[in-house]
Each structure stands twice: as C-alpha cells, then as structure tokens.
C-alpha cells in the first residue's frame, strides 16, 4: 500500500517536510519511488507565477527534442531550474531533471485561460508522444505555478538525490507519494501524483473498476484522457472531467466516484440532479479501496475515501498549515504542535476540503450535501 503525504500552508515550505512525514510511515511503502507535486511556488519561481512551468526528466537527446519543439511552437524560455543532483547509491541518475518556465507563444498571450490550458496540455501530450517510445523524455506537468519531480527509489534518498534539503524551491501546497510497487517494473509515468490542467491527485489503493472507468474517460473526446499506466490516473481525470468539463462544484466529485443509495440521495436537497448524475456517470463509480488526495487549479486541497473506507486517511493541523496523510504519524511529523483532538479521520461519506491559505478545514458530508 502506498503512503500519501500532502501539506497545504499559508507560508512557503520545503517539500522535505512531506518526505520526512513519509519517512515516519515507512512500513507502508517499500521505497520504490517518490513523486512530488508542488503548487503555488515560491523561491526562484515566485516571480513567474503566471507563466507555465514544464517539468520533465530526459536524456540529452530528449532535451534537444524538447527545446526544438518548444522553439518551433513559439514558446519562449524564461527560466530553467534544475535540482542540484547528489549521487546516492541505488538511484540511477538520468541525464536531466528540469523545470523550465516559458512564456506563451505570441498568438496565445491574450487568449482566455481555458484556451491557454488546452495549448499547454496538448503541448505536454505532444512531447510525451515524442519521448515515450525511446524513453528519452518524460513530461509530468506543464502549467503555471506547478512543479513535478519523480524518481525511483526510497523517498528520503530521492529527496537527498534532488538536493531538496538545501534547495530554495518552496511552495504552499505539496502532494507527495511514497510508492509501494505493485508491478515489478517501475515506470515514471505510472508514478503519482498525476496532473491535468491544474488538477493534481494521488491515491492510495487499488482501483478495481479501472477498465470500465478508463474506457469511459477515453470516450469523452478529451485527448488528455490517456496514459493510464497506473489505475490511479483516472482519479485525476475524473476530477478534471466533473469539475472543469462539466462544471460541477467540487463536492460532486464524491457523489460521482462513490454514489449513494437512492434512499440516501432522497435526503439531499439536490436529489433530482443527483439521481440523474448517478445514472449518467455510472461508469465512474470506483468501488474502492481508495483514499484520494489532490488539489484543484485554485489551490484547494481535498481528501476523499471510497464508499467502504477501506484505506486509512487523516487530516490534522492548525490554522495556516494542514497535513493530509495516510497515517497519524505523518501528521505528527508535519504539524507536531497542533491540537490533536481536532484531527479528522474522514469516513465514507466525508470529503475534506481546505481552501487556499489553509485557514480552516471543512468536512463536507455526502448525506447532507
């Protein structure tokens, strides 16, 4: 079972805090990989808030291809950041780990955000297609104010490998996953967190309904609904589909992945609409076991459980800083000086929502809507 560690804060903090939290939950992961997704970036990225950041791992050839492609498509490079790699035994170093900040092509500068987002996604997909066959280029995210780092290995060692302890890269939201490998070969595109157009999620569990969900998403006509090297990638896409494409408010995500019984729906004020959703989005029901943690484009962070709550998950913290973790020891590590009596263990009907700024935690209950 993988371990999840997310922190949302009003101040910038280092992703090492997440990694230390993962370290406390060590029994739960086998050190087979670390995925970090940072949102609301500080440090060297602070001045580029509105410009998209491309996060990639590549070989020399991949880097050349990437740069050529971006140039040919009118993207202007504004800044490049690369972690200062420190060789660590057991971690096989690839040629480049980069995060490049670009300015949009001329023709897109005044376009609405929606169109820009489509351009960014299509660019990411094109680069992925170029680099996937020979493994020369992996692109994880391309979006303003979001940075992704992934590598195979023990989380603490990967943090050391990326030199994060001393790095000036900070952010206000971090998703981190310590991987428990369930497939022998570890493929970077199969590592959480997953990203699409401002939405990032990571999951702990096994998605038994993966195939029907994948087939349903792939039929939505969105080229971004692809990949699926991990059965958990669908959780990111379901969030994107319901919140962005269909325009449903955030809590409906819970209603879609874990629909209630008709008798329960009847108690909700929006029952007529819910009944329709339950039928039309029936293939997106997950059946569990899963705990999903993620963020939306505005920086809201959430946690939801499957309908039987078959996975652990806890939220705790204090005003200005909250941790959403698989286990309580992770929260203890991230926010030790909190009032533990206010810790929240989201149950099967709950969706925990923390707005940007981490002022307070809201527990939305599916029964009451």
């Amino acid at each position, binding site marked *: 079972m993988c371990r999840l560690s997310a922190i949302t804060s009003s101040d910038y903090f280092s992703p090492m805090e997440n990694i230390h939290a993962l370290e406390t939950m060590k029994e739960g992961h086998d050190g087979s990989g670390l995925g970090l997704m940072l949102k609301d970036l500080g440090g060297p990225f602070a001045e580029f808030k509105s410009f998209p950041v491309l996060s990639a791992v590549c070989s020399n050839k991949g880097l050349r291809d990437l740069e050529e492609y971006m140039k040919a498509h009118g993207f202007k490079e504004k800044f490049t950041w690369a972690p200062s790699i420190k060789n660590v035994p057991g971690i096989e170093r690839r040629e480049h780990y980069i995060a490049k900040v670009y300015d949009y092509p001329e023709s897109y500068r005044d376009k609405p955000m929606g169109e820009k987002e489509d351009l960014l996604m299509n660019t990411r997909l094109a680069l992925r297609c170029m680099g996937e066959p020979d493994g020369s280029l992996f692109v994880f995210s391309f979006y303003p104010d979001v940075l992704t780092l992934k590598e195979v290995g023990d989380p603490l060692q990967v943090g050391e490998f990326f030199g994060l302890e001393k790095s000036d890269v900070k952010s206000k939201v971090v998703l981190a996953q310590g991987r428990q490998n369930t497939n022998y070969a570890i493929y970077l595109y199969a590592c959480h967190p997953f990203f699409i157009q401002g939405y990032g999620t990571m999951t702990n*569990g096994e998605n038994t*309904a993966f195939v029907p969900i994948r087939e*349903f998403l792939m039929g939505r006509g969105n080229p971004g609904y692809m990949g699926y090297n991990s059965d958990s990638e669908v959780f990111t896409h379901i969030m994107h589909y319901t919140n962005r494409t269909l325009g449903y408010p955030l809590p409906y995500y819970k209603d879609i992945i874990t629909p209630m019984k008709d008798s329960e729906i009847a108690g909700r004020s929006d029952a007529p*609409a819910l009944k329709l959703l339950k039928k039309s989005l029936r293939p997106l029901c997950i059946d569990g076991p899963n705990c999903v943690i993620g963020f939306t484009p505005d920086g809201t962070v959430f946690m939801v459980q499957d309908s039987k709550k078959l996975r652990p998950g806890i939220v705790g913290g204090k005003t200005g800083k909250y941790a959403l973790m698989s286990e309580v020891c992770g929260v203890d590590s991230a926010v030790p000086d909190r009032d533990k009596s206010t810790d929240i263990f989201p149950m099967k009907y709950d969706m925990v929502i923390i707005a940007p700024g981490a002022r307070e935690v809201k527990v939305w209950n599916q029964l009451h809507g």
Partner: protein
Amino acid sequence: MESAARLDQNHQLSIKEFPYIIKWREDRCTRCGRCTAVCPVKAIEPAVNTQRTVTSEGSSPEPKVTRRLTHVVKQSMEIERYCIGCGSCALVCPTEAIFPEYNFQHKFYHFKNKGGIPYMRGGRRNDPSVSTLDKLKFTRISMLTDPALDAGRHEFRIRTLLGRNLPAEHLPIRVEGGKLITIPGSFVPPVREIYPIRIGSMSIGALSPHMWEGLAMGITYLNEVEGLPVVMCSGEGGLPPSILKSRYLKYFIIQIASGYFGWDEIIRALPDMIEDPCAIEIKYGQGAKPGDGGLLQAYKVLGLISKIRGVPQFIDLASPPTHQTKYSIEEAVAKMIQSMSMAWGFRVPVYPKISGTKTARAVLNNLARNPYAAALCIDGEDGGTGAAYNVSMDKMGHPIASNIRDCYLDLVKQGKQNELPLIAAGGVGKGGNLAANAAALIMLGASAVDIGKYIMQTAAGCFGDEYNRCNVCNLGKCPRGITTQDPKLYRRLDPDKVAERVVEVFKAADVELKKIFAPLGRSTELPIGMSDALGVADKDIADRLSISYVC
C-alpha cells in the same frame, strides 16, 4: 437366405434409426399401463406377443410346444411416433421398469422430413458441447493488494439500468448556489432500475396459463417481498387484461412483434392502466430462429389464447419474419420506437430485440444515433423457441459472446457505452451456470441478460436438452404442462410450485453473483465491461473477445 427385395420390413425404420430407444424390463413391469397412457406422442403402446416354448419332460426327448400370450410395452417404429426421450414413462412407472436411452448413432434427421415437410420442433440448438460462456472464468481476484470484499458482510447493489441514459453533458442541470439543480420542463428519457437477470420473452400462448401464472407470481413476489426488481417480458401475444389493468404491470415488459398479436387488447386497456409497463420490447428477431417470424401452431390456439390475441381458435398463428409495414431499418426502428414511446407519453423505455447476427453493429449504430432508443437486446443462437424449423434452430444464428463484445466495444469507441444498454440473451444458464454466465456477459459489456429455457428447466422441470430430448413444445403436448394449452396437461403443473422455484432460483443467483463480484472488488455498481476480470484457456476465444488467455 431370403433376398432383400422380399424383406417385408425393408421400407420400415429399424430401432437404431431412432434418437431414443426404450429400455423395458419385462421382469419388473406390472403391466399397469401408466407409461403408455402418459406418453405424449404415443411412442409406446401395449402389445401382445406370442411366446412359443418347447419343453420336454422325461428321460427321452419328447418336445412339447406351448404358445403363451404375453403383454409387452412396445416402441413404435413410425417416424411420426418416435420416442422423444422425455422420460415421462420412467417418471410414472412404479417399478422402474422403463426408461428411454439416447442413441448416439441415430439417423433421425435423415427421415424426419416425411411428406416433404421439414422437421419442426421447439426447444434449442442441439449442441451439447461446452458453450463459450461456460469456458470463461473470473481470473482477477483481489489478493492482498486490495482487501477483497465479503459477499456475506458488505452491502452489494446488484442492479442495472434499462433505458437511455443521457450523457452528462446533456443533462438538464445547472449550478445554483454551489448546488446542482434540475432545469424544469426538460425531457429526460425514462430509465428503470432493474435486476440484471430478466425473464426473457415467452408468450402467453407459447406457455401454458399455469406456467405463465407461476412466472408472474414468482417475479411479483421477488419484487414485493424479496426486494429484487426482476422483470419479465410478455413475448408476442399480449398480456391478460387482469395484469394490464393492475399495479403489477410495472414488472412486465410488453413485447410487440410483427404479428401485433394481443395489441388490440393492450391499446384498449391503455386508458385503464394504473401503472406503466417496465418497458416495451419491439421484436425484430429471435436468436433460435433468425429470419423467421413467430409461430404458434394451431394445436395451441385454444380458448384463452384466441381471446387475448383476438383470433379464431385452432389456426396456425404465424407472425411475418419482418414488420411488414416498414421497409428499412430507419423506418422500422425509428418509427416503431417513436410510436410506442408516444403511446405511453414517453414515460416508458422502448427498445428493439434482434437475433444475434453479424449485422448487429449496424443496427446498434443506428440506435446509438436515435435518442429515443432505450437499449438493444441481442438474442444469440443458443436461445430457445416454442416452434421453429430444426434447420433454423440448429444451423442459423450467431453466438452471443462475440456479438455482445463487438457491440460493446463499438459503443466504447463512440463513448456511448453507458447511454445505450445492451441486453444479452441466448444460452444464458445453458449448462446450469446462470450467475456465472450472466456475470461473464456483463463483464463482456452487457447491462443485463435474459433467460428463458433456463427458467423453464429450473422452475418447471422442462425435460428439454441439447440432445433433442422432448422438444415438442410446438405440438401442445408438453408432458410437463409448460408449453401447452391443453388443460389436461397443464393441470399437472402447479403455478405455486413454479413461483416458489422462480424465487429460489433468483435468490440463489443473487448470492452467486455476489460471490463472483466480491473477490473482484466490485459491490456498488455492476461490473459492466470489466473485461480485465475475465480469462479463458482458449487463445482464439481470448483474442476474439479481447480478454486474457490463461492456462
């Protein structure tokens, strides 16, 4: 040796030509006559044999001939009176003196076309081999990486949707105050939540009144007492007025077929209906006899049936192979769906049923574009029938597994797999594995399955099988009283017992479905299209169905 030309019996059939050979034990038989009386086809008769005995007493041979008359049970050698192997004789025999034995070497088909009339019968395809459905197994078992569910402890929701599901993009809803609200006045197609195993179309003329009543009572009990929303289809030929005007109508799917039998009554009852039917099924084809219309032979067109169907007694009721008033698929499907929908004010799902065919995808694609089409039911070659030519049953049709799979994957390509439910029929439970066959079809892409022969066998003890046992459903001579309109025969069948078995069968299948779904980790929604759970030890089948090959 006598020349063959003069052999008196030369133009008669020998016992070895017959599919069933009666084994009768003279030593056990008490000559009660029950077997010959019960035989539905007069294949056996009492006969008198002379027995010549030569005895000799004393020390030197003094042969003495005595002739004795004995009563025997004799099997007829007339092809019209061939033993159908039903076993009724064995059933009634008090001393186990008689039973039919299947003859693998029979040449029955060579001769059963007397008078230039091809062999007609009821039943199913005579293919006793293991069906594709029975070869499929469930190979994705949740082990350690995720906790498997407990069929006895966790809550399961085994339900399916019958009706056109709007794509989410077209739902009449909008956001108001952070909540979704429905936009009043917009049309949302009717969708029913039903149990994924249905009792498929069997008409109230094909079935006896007692059989029909038993099924109807069974599903009503399942709905009202057990909470299992099992529905059944009327078949062509209407419904009794007592059902049409009752609150139970909601458990029935009314079928309209090319003969429109029974529809006068239905239309007349419309103003008095207090419930809508579950759905309307438009029959374009039947898996057991593709290309043929419905057929109710004169033997079965008696009192009640002639009344419900609005026809005279004792005439063959043949429905044309196609709906005669329509000349193209667009016409047929679109107009029929439209008119049926209108009759119930667009409150009832209307869908077509076709026989399994290579052209199913063309029909499907037409339906996918028709926003009023509520589903597509495909009836595979292993479906049953009350009456058809043997050649249609044995040699025509398309297996259901690949037909359903192709159609489902076509819908997936269009992103419409949740909009248009597929219903699979034909051979479900053929080998007795109802839940496993249903689950396999669901994982291949079906939203629901239909059963027919299976429920006749399990609930009423139908003798029929794939060795052509019995299968005289067309003649009105059903020895079990299932498919006959002869009161002397159907009085044998107790509707209460049938209903009881229907309930037992569905309750057991429900437990088995949970047993299958739980280890796959599915409990809330039906695993429609969850093909990664299936495996088969036959590479060709695996490739054809796009599932994994296991060995």
